[in-house]
């Protein structure tokens, strides 16, 4: 039993390292996410800026814009997780050699670390450009970590579903709406709580439940969509 768990963890680790090794050599997702986020960040910063929004609107509006930037950057880069494997013909080798669950989890962890890197770059820039002060730093960190994990898990699940379909771009948008919308609303609420200092334990708990639900659903669904 323990040997199987250790083997599974080793598979996740090997596949995770493969993802980053490939990414660092091609830099496709890194460049896509970063350029998309920075472009929208600058556009939003110039359009709204610290003076473009009233003090009363800042708490309600700016967290929404922040999560939209992260969502669209993720939408631009993360769907490639499985599409690239299918398009390049490497999916066949993975189907025969790796267990579906270890592959899914490694892709989620890879997407999560990619998003964390993006958040580390974008968040301080956004806060500085908008002169947005944070009253509850813990709530912001929770929003970034839990929201990032949910975004990674949800995007990976959608990417797996659409990988073998025609019209992938449209399908991602169609599936992202019902799967990612609840997360987006919760992450915005928790970020608002971080800005206002109202306490966001309830929102954080709900995001945690969302993350767990998507991970379990992904682990159950992925073998079905991955294998014939």
């Amino acid at each position, binding site marked *: 039993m323990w040997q199987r768990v250790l*083997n599974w963890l080793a*598979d996740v680790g090997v596949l995770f390292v493969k993802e980053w090794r*490939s990414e660092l050599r091609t830099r496709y997702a890194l460049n896509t996410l970063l350029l998309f986020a920075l472009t929208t960040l600058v556009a939003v910063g110039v359009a709204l800026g610290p003076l473009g929004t009233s003090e009363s609107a800042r708490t309600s509006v700016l967290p929404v814009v922040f999560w939209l930037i992260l969502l669209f950057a993720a939408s631009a880069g993360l769907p490639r997780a499985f599409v690239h494997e299918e398009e*390049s*013909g490497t999916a066949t080798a993975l189907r025969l050699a790796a267990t579906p669950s270890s592959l899914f989890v490694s892709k989620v962890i890879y997407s999560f670390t990619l998003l964390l890197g993006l958040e580390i770059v974008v968040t301080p820039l956004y806060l500085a450009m908008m002169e947005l002060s944070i009253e509850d730093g813990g709530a912001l960190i929770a929003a970034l970590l839990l929201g990032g994990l949910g975004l990674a898990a949800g995007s990976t699940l959608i990417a797996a579903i659409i990988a073998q379909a025609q019209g992938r771009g449209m399908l991602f948008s169609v599936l992202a709406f019902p799967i990612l919308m609840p997360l987006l609303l919760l992450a915005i609420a928790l970020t608002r709580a971080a800005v206002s200092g109202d306490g966001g334990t309830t929102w954080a708990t709900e995001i945690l439940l969302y993350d767990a639900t998507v991970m379990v659903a992904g682990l159950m669904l992925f073998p079905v969509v991955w294998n014939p």
Partner: protein
Amino acid sequence: MTINSLRFEHLVRGYGGLPVLRGVSAAVASGETLLVTGDNGTGKSTLLRCLAGLLAPESGSIELTEDGTALGTGQRRSRVGYLSPELSFYEELTVAEIMRLFARLRRVEPHRADELVERVGLPSGRAGGALSSGMRQRLRWAWAMLHRPSVLLLDEPFQNLDPASEGLTRDMLNDHLEQGGMAVIASPAPLGLSNVATRLELAR
């Protein structure tokens, strides 16, 4: 020696309502080769994909047995060595990195991966994307043999190989059969194989 067999019966598979395999049956046992021939579009590759567990047949049965125990589809995937023109590897990783990645996933000692790379004569430090078509085919051979599979499923196995490489891979195939392995080979041509136990001709 482990006694293995692969038997498939009445396999039916089509694509979008177009029938390709229509009730195909055959069997192969330890040390034997099944040669599947037929024109383009007769379902040779589809048959191999079904046998590998990469495609589900619409009806019919596939049974891979090891020492009298029938294996499930998941176990079958781990016991086959699959080689096909559609099989590709990571262009940004080197040959050694690709083989070691799959050696770890297949629970095979890393030196087995290095040995196979050396045996097929590939430059271990070259990126997958920088390999010629013949080198890619040799990498597919090394990959298919990596985990000492009980059955080799070879789709046009000597495609793009020069005479020396073809001789080398034929030796690898013979070694596999001598050690009790099985092989199912799909090709439009007979390939000049001398030790074929069963021939299966597919037609449209």
